[in-house]
C-alpha cells in the first residue's frame, strides 16, 4: 500500500475527527501492520500483540478528537499502542532487568573485528539479540525498538515516548550498550 503524503493523511485525520469512520478505517489499513510490529517487538513473540493493536485503534478512535495534529498521526498512535502494551506488560511477572554495563568489561578483551563471519548460525545470534532486547527494562526497550528496529528518527521516537531528545538519547545509549554487550559476549564465546 503506497504511503500517504502528510497532507493526505492530515485530511483523513480531519475527516475522522469530524466523525467519518470510513476515513478512520483507511488510517487503520495504513498503520495496522506497522503498529502490530512495534507492539510485538515490545511484548515479545507469542504475546497479545494482536489484541493490543486492536485495543490501541479502538482507543485512538475514541480519542481522535483530542489529537492536536502537532505530531504525526502515527507517532500519536504508537504512543497509544505502547502505553497499552506497557499496561499489559506490567501485569505480567518480570522477565529480567536492564543488563548492567559493569557486568561486561571489554577493555582487555581480544579484538575479533577482523575475524571472518561468526561460525554459529545467524539464527542463534538473532535469538541472543531477541533475548537481550526482551530483558531490557521497558523504559529502555522502547527507544531501542522505535529508533533501531523501526527506524524512526530520534525526534519522532522521542515524541512517541513524550521525552526530550537529550533524555531519549540517554536511554537509547544505555539500551544499545546493554544489547551490544550481549552480542559481544556471544561472539566472544564463538571465537
Amino acid at each position, binding site marked *: 500500500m503506497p504511503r500517504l503524503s502528510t497532507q493526505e493523511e492530515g485530511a483523513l485525520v480531519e475527516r475522522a475527527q469530524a466523525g467519518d469512520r470510513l476515513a478512520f478505517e483507511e488510517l487503520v489499513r495504513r498503520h495496522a501492520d506497522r503498529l502490530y510490529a512495534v507492539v*510485538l517487538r515490545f511484548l515479545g513473540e507469542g504475546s497479545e500483540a494482536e489484541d493490543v493493536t486492536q485495543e490501541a485503534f479502538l482507543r485512538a478512535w475514541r480519542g481522535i478528537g483530542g489529537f492536536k495534529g502537532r505530531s504525526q498521526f502515527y507517532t500519536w498512535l504508537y504512543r497509544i499502542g505502547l502505553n497499552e502494551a506497557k499496561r499489559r506488560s506490567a501485569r505480567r511477572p518480570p522477565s529480567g532487568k536492564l543488563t548492567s554495563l559493569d557486568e561486561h568489561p571489554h577493555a582487555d578483551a581480544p579484538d575479533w*573485528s577482523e575475524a571472518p563471519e561468526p561460525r554459529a548460525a545467524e539464527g542463534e545470534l538473532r535469538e541472543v539479540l531477541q533475548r537481550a532486547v526482551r530483558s531490557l527494562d521497558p523504559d529502555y526497550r522502547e527507544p531501542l525498538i522505535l529508533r*533501531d528496529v523501526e527506524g524512526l528518527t530520534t525526534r519522532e521516537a522521542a515524541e512517541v515516548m513524550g521525552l526530550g531528545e537529550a533524555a531519549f538519547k540517554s536511554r537509547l545509549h544505555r539500551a544499545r550498550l546493554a544489547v551490544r554487550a550481549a552480542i559481544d559476549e556471544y561472539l566472544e564465546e564463538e571465537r
Partner: protein
Amino acid sequence: MIGRWLQKRRFMREHRWTSARMDAYFDGELSSRERHRLEAHAGICPECKRMLATLRKTLEELRGLSRDPSPPAGLADSVIERLRGQG
C-alpha cells in the same frame, strides 16, 4: 619520557572523545571531519575498534528484526470489524 606521557594523554583524550560519540557516529550526526577523527582513533585503539564493530553488528541485527515476523493476515480487517461492532 615527556613525549610518551604527552602521547598517552592525547590518546586518552581521543579515547574519551570517541567513546562519547559512538551513537552519534551511527546516527549520522557527525560531520565528515568528526567521522574521520573517530575512525582514526578506532584504528589504533583496540577497545574502540571492538566497540565500533560490535555496535555496528548490533545495529544491523536490530534493523533486521523489523523484517519478521509478518503480521497476521487480515489484521486491519479484524480491527475494522471491532470498530464497526462498537457502533
